[in-house]
């Protein structure tokens, strides 16, 4: 504990952590600029970029038309000619509009030029259900994005993680997407971050809670639900180890496998329709690489294969929650 105290910490919100990350990187590197829908006057709809226009001016904070193809396509042109764009597309679900630019221009240009270009593009935007925003403003697209070969994916669950991951993403010479969860913003999640500058390496998982009976891999909001379930299960004598991969690409397989070696059981909690989800990919990797360590089937706690409903009680049912996780854990522990 004495070691920890040597680092001066402060408590900030998840939202503020996003602001600080972008602000610090823009101050550090003049080639970094931010563009997207409504980033200037609003600083984005929830205000994560508030103040940046006043500080950095119109050359580095640019409002774009409501045309996601333009945001991403322009970012590619800027990134191949010496700049480091942050392309904000407001809601990551809007990636559907510009999937060609993502899958082709962003992800394949380096390969198809035989490595002649770097693609330092950081894509950001809200993800996640829980705000009754319905089927076009709520989805996490991580499973689909994992298939976008050449794209790194950060999945931040805390203020500490979102700040450190965004800073690393901006410094990365490869494209990185950092969806941040709308519920964690809207509910004002707070957490400690160091006063001093820090970054989090892409590809390093974080064990959010140590345990011995079942390994739970979770991302974004689901990390918090897994931690809540862990509290409840502890009282029943079941110990969960909660692993936050922090990036899905690259995936820190070693930390997950080491945990499964200890627990022998794996549940993956992912706020996506189960088919084609990131949970499915992690399950497949673990089935191939850690089969001998498992003494129960891998479980996926995901959403049903439906669009996200608007009505609050339906949306609540749609989202994976503690009770579903507890049920899955109980099944493999009985």
């Amino acid at each position, binding site marked *: 504990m004495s070691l920890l105290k040597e680092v001066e910490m402060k408590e900030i919100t998840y939202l503020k952590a996003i602001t600080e990350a972008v602000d610090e990187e823009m101050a550090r590197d003049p*080639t970094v*600029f931010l563009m997207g829908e409504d980033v200037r006057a609003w600083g984005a709809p929830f205000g994560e970029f508030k103040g940046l226009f006043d500080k950095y001016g119109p*050359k*580095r904070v*640019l409002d*774009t*038309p409501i*045309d996601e*193809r*333009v945001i*991403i*396509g*322009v*970012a*590619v*042109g*800027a*990134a*191949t*000619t*010496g*700049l480091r*764009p942050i392309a904000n597309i407001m809601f990551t679900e809007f990636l559907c509009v510009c999937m*060609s*630019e993502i899958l*082709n*221009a962003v992800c394949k*240009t*380096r*390969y*198809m*030029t*035989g*490595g*002649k*270009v*770097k*693609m330092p593009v950081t894509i950001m935007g809200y993800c996640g259900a829980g705000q009754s925003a319905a089927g076009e403003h709520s989805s996490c697209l991580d499973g689909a994005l994992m298939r976008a*070969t*050449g794209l*790194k994916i950060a999945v931040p669950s805390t203020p500490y993680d979102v700040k450190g991951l965004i800073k690393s993403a901006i410094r990365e*010479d*490869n494209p990185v997407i950092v969806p941040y969860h709308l519920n964690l913003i809207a509910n004002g999640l707070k957490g400690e971050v160091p006063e001093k500058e820090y970054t989090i390496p892409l590809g390093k998982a974080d064990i959010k809670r140590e345990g011995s009976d079942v390994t739970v891999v979770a991302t974004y909001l689901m990390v918090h639900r897994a931690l809540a379930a862990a509290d409840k299960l502890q009282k029943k004598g079941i110990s969960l180890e909660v692993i936050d991969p922090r990036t899905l690409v690259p995936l820190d397989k070693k930390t997950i496998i080491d945990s499964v070696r200890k627990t022998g059981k794996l549940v993956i909690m992912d706020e996506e329709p189960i088919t084609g989800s990131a949970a499915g990919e992690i399950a497949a990797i673990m089935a191939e690489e850690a089969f001998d360590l498992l003494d129960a089937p891998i479980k996926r706690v995901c959403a049903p294969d439906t669009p996200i409903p608007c009505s609050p009680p339906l949306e609540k049912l749609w989202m994976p929650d503690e009770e579903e996780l507890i049920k899955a854990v109980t099944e493999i522990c009985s």
Partner: protein
Amino acid sequence: MAVAKEKLIWMYRTMVLHREFDERVGKEFAAGNIPGFIHLSQGHEAIGAGAMAALRADDYITAHHRAHGHLLAKGGKPEEIMAELYGKATGCMKGKGGSQHMTNPDVGHIGSDALLGTSSLQAAGAALSAKLRGTDQVVVAFFGDGALNTGAVHGALNIAAAWQLPVVFICENNKWAESTSIYDSTHLTKLTDRAFGYGIPAVAVDGNDVLEVYEVVSKAVAKARKGGGPTFIEAKTCRQHAHYEGDTQSYRPKGEIDECRKRDPIPRFRKKLVEMGVLTEKEADKIHQEALKTIEKAVKFAAESPFPKPEEVLTDVLA
């Protein structure tokens, strides 16, 4: 517009090299030496040569699936382009991009798309980059009349106008989007009307007249370089070959290709240069022979080059 003799000869040499290069690519493809989907651009030579003559080496271009000639004109090495077409390790993209993505950022050609329209957005991005970095570089975006109907080109024209970016959009109008006639894909009779809708000045030129292309592009580039924003140029031309090698072109009206060849930009420019006293017939012939020699060397280089090593399939995904 007075044009230096060296520049006139450079344009002619570039057009001839482009023509003979694509002629040879067609033959090598037919012989089974070049893999993939090949789209040739005989008939379009004046557009690339005229435009590139108006650019500096540090200016950027983006192009499309029918654009071996644009990279040749921008300074790409013929042997590296041929090797790329052969899928060889010595290709300008190590054999990983091929014909439809013929690009080389080393000479300022930053992207060729095969999902059309996308590269125009990259051109706008490079132009934004030039503006933000405070350079006076200009970007030329080449695309076809087919791509003009995509949302990507709409987005690029709109943002270039909104942000007054230093881009020159050159629409190579050969009236065919693959096998679909322009008369079936847009109600417009003048493509320049599209640009006026974005508040972009536009002009139509005879894309088979290299001097007209050069003159109009030069003005547009000079304007963009001074911060005057984008220009749209419709270069009317004619596709002498099929959409892709192997396409029988049953959809093209009888006589259209013969008409096309009558408007061929190369003999036309040659005649003019001889009349102007810039070249003698003998000197013009020599340029053709030199082009053929260069291409022969390029084919030899490509044929003798090794394929990429097996491990190359996994490299260059990430930096």
